[in-house]
Each structure stands twice: as C-alpha cells, then as structure tokens.
C-alpha cells in the first residue's frame, strides 16, 4: 500500500465518520485505485454494522428525577449557599440571645455622685451625703446587701462581668496616690470604692476605704473599710479597722509657745 493510498483511506474513514467531503484528487484516486475503493466501501459497511449491532444506549426516563431526588437528600449539607443561610440564621439567633442576656443580667452602676444621694431614684448602694460643715464628712450609708455575708473562712465568689461591660460602667479610676489630699480626689475615691463594693471586689474596696480613712475622711470611711474587709473574709483586717475607729491613734499635742494663754494658765496653776 502506497503512502497515497494510505492517505486516501484515512480521508475515507473521516468521511464515513462525520461526512466530511474529500478532496478532488482523493476522489480521482478512489476512481482509479480498486483497493482504496474497496476499503472505502468496507468502512461504510463496518460503520453501518456498528450502528446496527450496538444497541442505542440512552439513560432511563427517570434519570433527571433521580438526580433531583438525590439533590434533595443532600441539600441541607452540601451547597454552601444553604450553609451561608444557616450561618446567617445562627448569627441572628446568637445576636438575639446575647442581647437578651445583656438586658437581663443585673449590672450595678457605680455609686451615685454625692449630690444625688437622697434622690428617690437612688439605688440602695453606698451613698455619700455632704454635710454643710465639712465636705469631707461622710454620712453613714448601708452597705449593699445583695448577697449574704460570708461566714468566717468562707470563700467569696464574686460574679465577674465581661470586660467590655466593666469598662462601660467603670468610674474614673483614682490615681494610685494612697492618700487623697483634695476633696475632689476624695470624691473620686469614694466612687471608686463604692463601685468596687457593688461589684463584689470587697478586698480592694476595703483598701480604698482605708485609704480614705487614713486621709481623714471621717470615721464612716473607716467603718466601711472594716465592713468591706469583713465581707472579703479578712477578719483580721476588719478588726484592725474597727479597732482604729474605737481607739484612734493619739494625736501629738502641738507645742505651746511661751507667752501664750496656756503658758500663763500653767504658770498660774503651778
């Protein structure tokens, strides 16, 4: 078989497959070459035999329905758009739950400012009343009684709030100077100590009230320091605070200068 015959027979096979036309010179060669003409005819017969012997294979009529039913089975888990919708619902439900928790959770505000201690809307937290004689004099106020007082040696479990909520309601923290020298600083310390008490941090509240008491804020500060220490379970410190109230340290007597009335009285007495 010559190369030309092989080329022509290849063209014949292509024509049998898809009916593509042959070149003119190929047609001329087919008319001249008996072997190529016989091959072309045999290929046509073979193609028809194939088409007849191989049964027409088509999918079943319920193919599409079967596919769609399998889709319905897999719908909740497979496509991501359903996942996205579910995620949206989850986010919405989560937001609602968080909002409900945030609304229902009791949050104690910090102690009211001193000027609003007697207002009808004031809460039963620590109140501060400013007297007319001295701005540093504190009126006695009841301690928060929201929880029972812990027994001796009992550990106090204070409820911790989320950090963002703590920052939202937290009053201005006083400067770490232990002794508030100015009345304004004392008010900040009072608010700070009351806020600590309201949130169950009695140990630090005791320290704040103690600092106020040492700064000369009055016996109420010492009393509340003792109560806070008692609530914190530190009985020894509470006793120290109470003892300081009952037996204050003796103030050194100022030296009397000669020529004063006291000196004269002493002289006359002598």
């Amino acid at each position, binding site marked *: 078989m010559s190369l030309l015959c092989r080329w022509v*027979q*290849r063209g014949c*096979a*292509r024509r*049998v*497959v*898809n009916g*593509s036309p042959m070149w003119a010179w190929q047609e001329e060669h087919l008319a001249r070459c008996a072997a190529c003409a016989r*091959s072309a005819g*045999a*290929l046509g017969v*073979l*193609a*028809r*035999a*194939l*088409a*007849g*012997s*191989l*049964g*027409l*294979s*088509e*999918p*079943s009529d319920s*193919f*599409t329905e*079967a*596919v*769609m039913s*399998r*889709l319905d089975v*897999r719908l909740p888990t*497979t*496509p*991501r*758009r359903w996942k996205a919708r579910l995620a949206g619902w989850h986010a919405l439900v989560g937001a609602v739950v968080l909002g409900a928790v945030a609304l229902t959770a009791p949050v104690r505000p910090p102690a009211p400012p001193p000027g609003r201690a007697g207002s009808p809307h004031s809460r039963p937290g620590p109140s501060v009343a400013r007297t007319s004689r001295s701005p540093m004099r504190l009126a006695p106020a009841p301690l928060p009684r929201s929880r029972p007082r812990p027994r001796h040696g009992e550990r106090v479990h204070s409820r911790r709030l989320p950090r963002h909520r703590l920052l939202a309601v937290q009053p201005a923290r006083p400067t770490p100077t232990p002794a508030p020298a100015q009345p304004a600083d004392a008010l900040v310390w009072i608010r700070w100590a009351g806020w600590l008490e309201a949130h169950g941090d009695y140990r630090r509240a005791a320290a704040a009230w103690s600092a106020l008491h040492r700064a000369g804020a009055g016996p109420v500060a010492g009393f509340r320091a003792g109560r806070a220490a008692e609530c914190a379970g530190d009985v020894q410190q509470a006793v120290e605070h109470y003892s300081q109230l009952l037996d204050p340290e003796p103030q050194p007597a100022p030296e009397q200068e000669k020529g004063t009335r006291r000196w004269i009285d002493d002289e006359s007495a002598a």
Partner: protein
Amino acid sequence: MHAMALSSPAVAVTDEALARGARDGDQDAFAELVARHRATAFAYAYARLGQREEAEDVAQEAFVRAWAALDRYRPGACWGAWFMRILRNLCVDAARRRAQHQAATLSDDWACPAPCPEALAITGEERTRLAVAVAALPERLRTPLLMHYGSRQTCREIAVALGVPESTVTGRLAAALRRLRHGLREEAT
C-alpha cells in the same frame, strides 16, 4: 471550547446562565442542565464502564457532585466541559475500583434489542466478532467509538466529554474504524 451543542438549539438560555441560576439556588435551572447533558454523561459513563446500571449511577453522582461544587464553577467557563471533568474523574475512580482497565469487555447490554435493517444484514456470529473486536480496541479509541455508534453522540459532544478537540475525536473514530476493519480482515483470513 464553548457550550456543548445541545439537543434543543432553540433554547436561548445558555448553560452558563443556567449554572448561575443553579448556583443561586434555582433547582429548575439545574434540572434543565441535567436534562441537557444527561445523554452525553450517560453515554460517556456507559462507554467507559460498560455496565448500564453502574454508568447511570456514576452519571447521577456526577450531577450531584456538580451541584455541590457549583460555587467553584467559574462563570466564564464552559459548564459542559467543567461537568464532564467531574464525570471523567468519577469514571476513572469507578473503573479503578473494578480493576477493569485491562480486561474491558462489552456487556450484553450493547446488543441491539430491536435490530435495525443494517443489523439484520449481519449474522449473530459476525456481531459477536464485532463486539470482540471493539472490546479489543484501546480505551482512547473504544470510548469515542461506543459513544458515536452506540449512543449517537456527535463528534462535538464527544469532544466536550473527552476534553479534546473535535478534530481529535474525528481522527480517533477514523482510526478505530480502520483498526476494526484491519482486525476483522486478519481474523477472517
């Protein structure tokens, strides 16, 4: 390579538009895609696997996989080619599971249930010889041959299913015919 030549060319909606709709949750659009491509999918799976039930199951699984992976389909690409790639991978897996790569035989399903006039011209013995000769073809020639003569798929549809150019399909079909004729002639002599 553009969208597969469809059985209903009058339909204006392209495969890509239907795929976009299906990706947005439209099951009717996906059902239309299944109706368009089911014949080619089944023909390819049948030609590769040789068992009717298994071919139908693999083809359906390919559509389910395509549905699940629609968000990974690039909108500008040909949906038919993308889907056929999934089907080809599934067929390869199925054939590997059965370990029928080396011993592929035509099942009796390929026999024509209602013989046409051409089929009546050849005897049962010739039909058996032809089936044996087809089974002896390599897979790259046998699959397009079975798809073309067994499932009446056009060369363009076969090209999309196989992921090759249309001219390659034509060349493979022609080569399969010539090799079949050569094998049958040698067997006769």
